[in-house]
């Protein structure tokens, strides 16, 4: 037998998925590789496996969500796990049972993985510290949304081969976006050149320190880009506080073919959804089958979540603390 030591599994040390920041490149690549395998699997007629048979996954959402929750639910079911969905109003956490009480209650039911979305940055981490099972961050405030970044990276990788050397522009409400932050981290980890483009009121101070070049002019920022990621702009930000109006936002920051002409001719358009057509993106661009990979992102979402759940929910349970 050869003396070559068996390669160590970079995912062996992964207990939770709370953030992309701090993730090793090998871990990211291993997750993407694993997810890639689930893409074909999900396209087959029989989508069910038993890799998580007998395991329990709880989707604990303190913020309403349709697509992310459905995506996690489908991923868990395809792996054979039992899935419970809990939607809890964040307001009740603020005035009644605390977040930690909720965590302790759920912990007593011995789930294998908790998928948590919360409107406050850092809330998922706080909860993760109190439970024994694996915790997957389904989005916390304006902090991180790690599975979104992974599914975006998978989408890009399958289209462009690799991420190294690609120029990626993330456009829109950077200040309030967890999608932007997770993507900035992951794209940097995978060797892409990252730009952010936004009105100055939606660029958080010091964003450059995260490894991006910031632009306030869309055409300048899109110059030579391989990937254009649009972000959703919340309606309440458009009423004269951060941005004067929808029409002004669309004029200067909405992605239309005129602005897109600054990017590379084969640039791909991405959006985490749900889209505000006519606000951050022109319908014609969003539905451009040659450029838009927005629906593909949704498909990759299930594959990525299957990969992450397989790794984290499939472990032997820890001894109770």
């Amino acid at each position, binding site marked *: 037998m050869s003396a070559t030591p068996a390669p160590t599994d970079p995912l062996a040390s992964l207990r939770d998925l709370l953030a992309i920041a701090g993730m090793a490149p090998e871990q990211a690549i291993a997750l993407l590789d694993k997810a890639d395998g689930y893409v074909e699997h999900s396209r087959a007629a029989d989508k069910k496996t038993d890799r998580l048979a007998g395991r329990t996954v709880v989707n604990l959402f303190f913020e309403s969500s349709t697509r992310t929750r459905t995506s996690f639910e489908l991923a868990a079911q395809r792996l054979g796990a039992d899935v419970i969905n809990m939607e809890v109003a964040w307001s009740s956490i603020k005035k009644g049972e605390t977040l930690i009480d909720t965590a302790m209650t759920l912990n007593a039911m011995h789930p294998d993985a908790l998928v948590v979305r919360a409107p406050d940055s850092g809330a998922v981490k706080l909860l993760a510290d109190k439970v024994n099972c694996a915790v997957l961050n389904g989005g916390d405030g304006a902090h991180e949304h790690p599975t979104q970044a992974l599914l975006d990276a998978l989408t890009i990788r399958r289209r462009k081969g690799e991420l190294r050397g690609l120029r990626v522009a993330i456009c829109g409400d950077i200040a309030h976006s967890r999608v932007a932050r997770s993507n900035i981290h992951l794209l940097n980890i995978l060797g892409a050149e990252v730009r952010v483009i936004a009105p*100055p*009121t939606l660029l958080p101070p010091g964003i450059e320190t995260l490894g991006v070049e910031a632009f306030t002019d869309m055409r300048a920022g899109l110059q030579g880009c391989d990937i254009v990621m649009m972000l959703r702009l919340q309606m309440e930000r458009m009423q*004269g*506080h*951060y941005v*004067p109006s929808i*029409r*002004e936002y669309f004029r*200067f920051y909405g992605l239309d073919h005129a602005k897109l002409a600054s990017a590379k001719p084969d640039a791909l358009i991405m959006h985490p959804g749900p889209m505000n057509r006519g606000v951050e993106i022109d319908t014609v661009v969003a539905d451009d089958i040659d450029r838009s990979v927005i629906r593909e992102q949704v498909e990759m979402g299930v594959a990525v979540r299957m990969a992450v759940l397989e790794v984290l929910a499939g472990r032997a349970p820890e001894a109770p603390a």
Partner: protein
Amino acid sequence: MSVDVEPGTVAYTNARVLDPARGLDAYGGVLTRGGTIVDAGANLFAGGVPDDATVVDCGGACIAPGFVDMQALLGEPGHEHKETIHSAGVAAASAGITSIACLPNTDPVIDDEAGLEFVARRARETKLVKVYAHGAVTRGCAGGEMTEIGLLSAAGAVGFTEGVTQVRDAGLLRRALSYATAFGAVICQRPEEPAIASGSMNSGALATRLGLKGRSRHAELMMIERDLRLAEMTGGRLHIGPVTAGESVELIRRAKARRLRVTAATAPPYLVLTEDAVGDYRTFAKVSPPLRTEADRRAVAAGVADGTIDAVASDHNPQDQDSKRLPFEAADEGIAGLETLFALTLGLVHDGTGGLLDVLHRLTAGPADILGLDAGRLTPGAPADLTVFDPDAPWVIDPDSFIGKCKNAPFENHTVRGTVLRTVVDGRPIHTAAARDAA
């Protein structure tokens, strides 16, 4: 007196040519063709005047870029009984002003593209001085939601301001300054903290004696200090004016030394008058910020002379009898300033405070640069906006004979020196002294 034929080639000869932007003060002339300056300077006509040129012999008078008034309230739309774009245009032309940037405090407020279009159309029809408009910072100048600074900039707004008031909310001003950087737009603030500036005249012994509630210079200083902080925080372009307190000049001087993107203006009342002008409850001397002390007046004048203050604006605010013939505290604020802007400012030259080119700079290239206007210079290719004036000819200000609609100015019987002989916009004479004398 507007002439509807296309101006041909005109040679302004026998003139003292003053172009503050390039420090030019020389005997010579200016040549214009159509609406454009061909050249200006000494020895321009040494080889003779071009054959096709009409000669305007300036008779040894000064010729300078037309004056740019960066801050004036014009009353139209909504307050046409106080001033119209036409009445203001005639008044401004008589005083050598070729460009005005009007404030958005009209009815309706200039806070959308339609408001800008209206002013532009009325100015085109009037065909006198060029009239630009500031857009409001907030919708309706109500202090709530930011206006469409990008679309308004694209539609020609030269600056953004609440005009006769100011942005109170620090968070809002922070966002506006920040947002405006994407469009290179300047935010102009009248420096008074409204929560503190509740009185009706400068606070001090005189206000106390008159039994009037005072308005402390600290209201001005704290607003400037706060706004400078916000400019530093956002990298935004901030313009402060009118500046009236001596300490304000010092604050701005230090901010400029720190390389903040800040500019400042004042207005002639603060260069000429003190709180004493309030005298016996004279409402014509009620203005915001209020007239201050002699020490403040001197410091502000020195700031104009040394360039700490970049511009002198008329801060024209026409008020009719109904607004002024009231008890002092009930009367409206404001001084009609178009027709005295030049002569009162030139007083700084006559009393030795500043040099002629320096003072003229604050009326020409200074304000033009703040607003990004192609004006205020005698550069070849620039618009032929010119003022011919006699810097020494004395006259006595008589507000009752003002051409503008309102006569609210506390300058009656002030003797000034400096008479405008001819005002030219895009090569067209819009005022000549002879025409005024005949009127």
